[in-house]
């Protein structure tokens, strides 16, 4: 992902500091409005490494002017769209905000669909929705109604300079938004150019069916394997920490956003209506 696109990406837990909701807005269905807060449903990777200087001092990425070599502050740079090679059209935050269609400022659930009818290739990232003070009853009404009827609500809305297509799911009384890719961002097998189907022999299909049956489980238990790399990294870190040779100490950063925050605790508090 190019760095220049950072402003457009949904923030992760680290960027929001975790404790603050990353968006507050209103969920609507019919004329009912439910003020809600959005929190990421994913924690940052445990294995992320920091860039350090030769003496272990933490580093930051900075923009600088190529000609003068001078560092540039946030108010000295602008956003530009490359309309032709090396020809840019600049666009301000204010312009982007004013281009937001009015109807998409709220999460307006215009359609409800069977919850298991959306193909997985649409899903991008999950966010929990928590009710704002005073909206618990309307929140519960929507959650219970969707859960009982196995429905997901569909909406589009604009947040932080990007339009999102979302599906809202209800699980255990809690609403969760899954951002989705727009249809023109999803390829079909024909777009990819996969070869035409060749008929399979009944005997081979049967062989695979038997194999599938013999290895079937009723429930999905998240596989630990993908985390092996992280576990190995943490083991090595522990080992090196004991040996002390590769450890540096610097003044801890005052920046509160870098504090480790327990997102689960933050979510629990927010669902219980506590600040």
């Amino acid at each position, binding site marked *: 992902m190019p760095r220049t696109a950072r402003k457009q990406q949904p923030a992760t837990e680290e960027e929001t500091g975790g404790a603050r909701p990353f968006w507050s807005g209103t969920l609507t269905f019919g004329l009912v409005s439910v003020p809600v807060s959005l929190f990421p449903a994913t924690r940052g990777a445990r294995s992320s490494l920091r860039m350090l200087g030769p003496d272990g001092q933490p580093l930051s990425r900075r923009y600088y002017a190529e000609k003068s070599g001078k560092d540039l502050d946030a108010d000295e740079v*602008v*956003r530009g769209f490359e309309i032709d090679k090396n020809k840019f059209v600049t666009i301000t935050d204010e312009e982007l905000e004013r281009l937001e269609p009015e109807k998409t400022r709220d999460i307006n659930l215009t359609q409800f669909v069977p919850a298991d009818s959306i193909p997985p290739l649409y*899903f991008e990232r999950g966010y*929990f929705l928590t009710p704002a003070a005073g909206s618990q009853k309307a929140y519960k009404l929507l959650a219970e109604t969707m859960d009982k009827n196995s429905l997901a609500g569909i909406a589009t809305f604009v947040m932080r300079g990007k339009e999102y297509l979302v599906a809202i799911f209800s699980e255990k009384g809690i609403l969760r938004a899954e951002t989705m890719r727009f249809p023109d961002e999803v390829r079909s097998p024909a777009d990819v150019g996969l*070869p035409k189907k060749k008929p399979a022999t009944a005997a081979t299909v049967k062989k695979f069916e038997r194999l599938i049956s013999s290895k079937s489980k009723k429930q999905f238990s998240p596989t630990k394997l993908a985390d092996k790399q992280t576990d190995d990294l943490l083991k090595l870190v522990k080992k090196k920490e004991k040996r002390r040779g590769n450890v540096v100490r610097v003044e801890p950063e005052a920046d509160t956003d870098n504090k480790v925050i327990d997102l689960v605790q933050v979510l629990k508090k927010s669902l219980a209506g506590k600040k």
Partner: protein
Amino acid sequence: MAARAIWKGQLKLGTTKIPVKLYSAVQDKTVRFHILDDKNKARVKQHMVDSDSGEEVPNEEIQKGYEVEPGKFVILTEEDLEKLAPPPSRDIEVVEFVPQDEISQQWYDRPYYLGPDDGEKEYFALVDALNKQEKEGIAHWVMRGKYYAGGLRPVDDYLLLSTFRDAKEVILADQLAKPTGAAPTQKELAMAKQLVEMLKGEFNPKDYKDEYRQRVMEFIEKKAKGHAPRLKPVKTKRQTAALDNVLAKSIAALKKEKRAA
């Protein structure tokens, strides 16, 4: 034009191996901006600086560290990181199968189509078998120096392999508690059910367009020609009313819409 395969491997189910090619199933259409120097509208460069002094640190002096506690870093060398990389393999091992609606949407990260590379008959036989049994396979593999776990599903006549997020990254509803506060009444629940039933339909992705992306692109094109329209600030409206009242009004409004259609 046919897409290019990004990786080659083989699906391993028990003792059967099916050669496959991986293709990205998505293409990001987000409008990308460059960061420019406001003074001369020239592209800017990036470098790493000491967070405190602002002094530039050249690339060859940069090291990577893991913060074990605030201000305490364990340095990991390039050699360490190479050793941590999993041994390369071409096997996508399918270890078990679960019902297709069993895996929460939260797990899915990036989707890839698998195309047959050789042995097309076995490939399409597996698609048929997964479709008949309505199952999704759980697979793991190593690709470009990284472990992956993912779900293998049939999409029409083909196989889709979606990578999963790391188990420790995902927060599940099980770990949380229901919101507190007053419960809705039976009457409100009945009306809400009626309301969602009226808005119920099939998921049809073609109904949704990124209108904002279109508006931004149109504006950029006009601005490039030197006549950007004046943009007005956006107003937001809010309304508050009793829940059952609003529900009744919503149902009435939708009924009227349906009659008019």
